[in-house]
């Protein structure tokens, strides 16, 4: 089935089987392997991407359902030269060990970052409640989120845009 999806700002037209999951479409059709596939039935959150700016699980959506819509993956975050501030924060605060959950964590937190608001520990934990991490115990992930959100809030207070999506 001919399906047109915009991924990280670039339009792609592919003939896909209706049963193809969006996660497989991103990884196998487009070669965007930054989106990790963990449980593949909507539990672990590692495959989270943005659909029209909102976090969704790409393993729990058919590629054909994405027709005409806008998807952002972790590959859409960094530029050639610079990591995204969320990625910088995860690096600085040791918000990952094995890194498997990281793309999902980043994409889940991206809309929160883009709002430019500081959140409490509890609100951050609620935001990432659908993402499992087996390494960090979440403490450093929460710290990373705080660091990134402080940065975003400072940008907003300084009259700058938080960015991309």
């Amino acid at each position: 089935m001919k399906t047109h999806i915009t991924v990280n700002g670039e339009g792609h037209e592919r003939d896909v089987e209706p049963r193809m999951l969006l996660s497989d479409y991103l990884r196998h059709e487009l070669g965007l392997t930054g989106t990790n596939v963990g449980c593949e039935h909507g539990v672990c959150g590692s495959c989270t991407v943005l659909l029209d700016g909102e976090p969704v699980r790409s393993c729990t959506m058919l590629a054909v359902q994405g027709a005409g819509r806008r998807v952002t993956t972790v590959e859409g975050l960094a530029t050639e030269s610079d990591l995204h501030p969320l990625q910088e924060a995860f690096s600085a605060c040791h918000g990952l060990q094995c890194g498997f959950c990281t793309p999902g964590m980043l994409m889940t937190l991206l809309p929160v970052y883009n709002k430019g608001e500081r959140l409490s520990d509890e609100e951050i934990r609620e935001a990432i409640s659908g993402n499992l991490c087996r390494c960090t115990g979440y403490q450093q992930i929460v710290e990373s989120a705080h660091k990134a959100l402080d940065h975003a809030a400072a940008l907003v207070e300084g009259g700058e845009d938080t960015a991309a999506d």
Partner: protein
Amino acid sequence: MKPPPFDYAVASDLNEAFALLEADEDAKVIAGGQSLIPLLSLRFASPTLLVDISRIRELRAIRCVGETLSIGALARHSDIETDAAVATYAPLLAAAATWVAHPQIRNRGTFGGAIAHSDSAAEFPAVLLAMGATIVTRSSAGERRTAARDFFGSHFQTSLQHGELVTAVEVPGGDAGTRWGFSEFARRKGDYAIGGAAVHARVDASGTCVAASAGLIAAGPGPTPADDLDLELVGRRVTEDDARRAVDRATQGLTPESNVHGSSEFRRAVIGESLRRALHQAFGLPTVDFRRTSA
């Protein structure tokens, strides 16, 4: 962990959806797909055709019709969570929405989908039982309205016929006399409940309970109304003792299945405690919040 092959068609309006469904008795409806796609991936379901109704705009609206709040089948869980009319007229639904799965799932999953799926462990069916909601369905034969109590059956069954869709749900709008409470327990917030309860009640100007009902979560083979709850509550200014007696009456006959999360006895105790906490919240008795105690 990959879905079996199926055909896929996007319905642009209801009549097209009816025609597609009627032409194939093994066709299934898909909207958000947050329950269906895992079922396909786990190969618990193998439809020949998926009819995607998610682009039928008329099914998205949330609006007040007189004293009733009408919620379109394609309203997403995240819409229920944030909609101003839901917060004002059906705060129990808005509160329950925050317990439905995780934020990423709430951004895709639809209200009508959750109702048609009729999962015993889901929040919305229990809330609709408590609120005495009406499920509006349509097929090529016309529209039907079914009381929530008559709509939900056991083991994911409903009164829906093949070729018939949930189009909207109508809930009675609350007023100053409306009281509600919601409580649920899961290993991880957002995972399927081990047990839970939604309470909807009315009090008169003196604070005396004039109506009370509840839906129980993960309490049986289907969404479960709490029978005879009102016998211990109506006509009283509800006390902690009344709430405890109502819980005993509503849970004594329950036999939830033993599973990996606990024995039937344990799960009945969790459901009872959830109901007690929801009643406490509804009637302004001392409350305990699971989320705060477990954090």
